[in-house]
């Protein structure tokens, strides 16, 4: 790997390889998203390696979730290019799985756990493809993998926050994708769920799949991830965790706020039932 620590993001461009290595899972170039007239994400370049676990880290309002959604085409971008395994986003949809923020949906929706996981198959099954047989077994396996096999017929409103997150992960597993994009997968989940999710993600990585997660808990970045993008509207630093996730880069991303209002983020997550 090139020494890609680049506190001076744009200026570091000549150091970075001109063309991303073939093993890059997700490449963003000049990605800009604006709500109204101020940039939520500004001109971000990033290269998330294949077969690795990458984190997107930054303070509140830094545009982490927006970056992920723009990479998926869920929100429109002002400018920029997205490449997935070397091909444009549009032709790579089957290779991507997405886990949105748990709080982004209404869990009072009248549906069961099993039905939610089935949604992961809606693209491959189309409007009429059978969801019984092999696909039903796949749904059951995915639920089993996240420890939710006993909850398949439960109404989703009855789940705890951690269980909801596991269901969302199971839905993404059902997609059998090569690249997993997760938005705050550990937010508001209990410690057991966090361990379970980390295990599943690590297993995915060992199968050669790639993971990019928006992550809010600075204390666990080093334990969980290989690669990190520090974001505060613009790219602050990017590279292997060992070199890019340092006191200097954190201070550059968080500024003075790190020592005061973000103490909670450095401490291990307390967890919530």
């Amino acid at each position: 790997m090139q020494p890609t620590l680049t506190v001076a993001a744009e200026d570091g461009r000549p150091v970075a390889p001109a063309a991303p290595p073939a093993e890059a899972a997700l490449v963003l170039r000049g990605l800009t998203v604006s709500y109204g007239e101020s940039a939520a994400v500004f001109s971000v370049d990033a290269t998330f390696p294949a077969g690795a676990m990458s984190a997107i880290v930054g303070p509140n309002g830094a545009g982490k979730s927006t970056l992920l959604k723009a990479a998926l085409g869920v929100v429109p971008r002002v400018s920029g290019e997205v490449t997935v395994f070397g091909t444009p986003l549009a032709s790579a949809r089957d290779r991507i799985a997405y886990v949105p923020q748990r709080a982004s949906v209404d869990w009072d929706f009248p549906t069961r756990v099993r039905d939610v996981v089935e949604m992961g198959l809606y693209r491959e099954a189309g409007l009429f493809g059978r969801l019984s047989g092999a696909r039903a077994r796949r749904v059951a396996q995915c639920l089993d993998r996240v420890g939710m096999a006993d909850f398949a017929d439960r109404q989703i409103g009855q789940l705890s926050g951690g269980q909801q997150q596991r269901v969302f992960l199971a839905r993404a597993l059902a997609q059998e994708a090569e690249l997993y994009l997760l938005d705050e997968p550990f937010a508001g989940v209990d410690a057991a769920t966090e361990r379970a999710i980390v295990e599943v993600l690590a297993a995915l990585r060992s199968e050669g799949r790639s993971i990019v997660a928006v992550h809010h808990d600075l204390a666990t970045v080093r334990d969980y991830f290989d690669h990190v993008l520090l974001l505060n509207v613009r790219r602050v630093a990017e590279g292997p965790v060992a070199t890019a996730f340092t006191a200097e880069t954190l201070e550059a991303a968080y500024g003075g706020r790190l020592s005061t209002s973000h103490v909670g983020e450095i401490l291990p997550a307390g967890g919530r039932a």
Partner: protein
Amino acid sequence: MSPFLDALLLSAGYNAALVTVGAALLGIAAGATGTFLFLAKRALVSDAVAHATLPGVGLAFIAMVAMGGDGRSLPGLLAGSAASAWAGLLAIEWITRRTRLKEDAAIGAVLGVFFGLGVVLLTVVQTMGAGRQAGLEEFLLGATAGMLFADGVTIAAGGALALAAAWALRRPMTLVAFDRDYAAARGYDVRRVDLAMMALVMGVTVIGLKLVGLILIVALLIVPPVAARFWTERAGGVVWIAGAIGGASGYIGAAASAAAPDLPTGPIIVLVAAGIFALSLLFAPARGVAAAGARHRRFQRRVHRRQGLLALAHGDAIREPYTLRLLTREGLIRPDGVPTAAGRAQAAKVARDERRWAVARELFRDADLAGRHAGLTPIETIFTADEIAEIDRRLGGPAPAGGA
């Protein structure tokens, strides 16, 4: 235009003048009251309230006839409509609090069901001997023609009263509409303020029934605040502007209707307000579409220009078609993508400023610099010449990248 002018100048007869003034007062009260609803994102509650008045009108008529009256007494009908509107409000609150249904479903259910019940009662009224000429249909769309002096007084006095109440309650209502938790922390009884706000909405609705009609009175509560929102970012300002827009709509609309008695009053008042809304949406400088669109295009142009110039400076290819078009149009690159002399100069400046920004962020370690001044702000506007000189001095060597 002369009759209209007469009406505008309140010289088209005593009754017409009274109604016109009453409509203006009602418009101000409705605009101001509606603002609190709008800020609390509950604008359409007023629609349910308005439709829920219909069964009350019917029941009041039936009751008054049963008691030997003539059934058409305006205060009696308004009291009935207020009672059923209040029942509708309670039903909405009960459904949203007790069940899993959301407020929009509760609003729609109450609106449709109460109106349906009202239609049933109207058919009952029509079959009553006294009901043939009841004229209750006027409550649907409003009418000033044939309005009695007492009706004019009722509307003018009611409008003044609603306005006074809105004025008296403006502080707690603004606070609650804007931030319920903060208002509660400040010691306001949020639930009671809510109730007062709803009572005010109901009052405006009931007073406006005869004038604007129950289907369109809701427009006086919604359109002025939405129009006012384009002119200011301050909640207090919205209240004032909405009141002014509502008052002007009521005044002009009622005057026009007095000049042309065969036209229904309600639609004219609403269309005046809608015209003001359309102008505000398009041309208001603060949040108008024209201004916002221009700002967004400017922003997009600056983003693409900067990215294109940086790519030139680094010798990268420009891929995005818009960037290429933009730079070509500005004479910074030739159609084949090769930079012109001007383009090279601009690219060098942008690249230099990027390096300066990087150093500046290193120097000042300020999260705002990392975030907000995202590279579109000319560096000269943030730092003094001395600071830039210092930055340039440090630029001499490569930026140190002290790793762990």
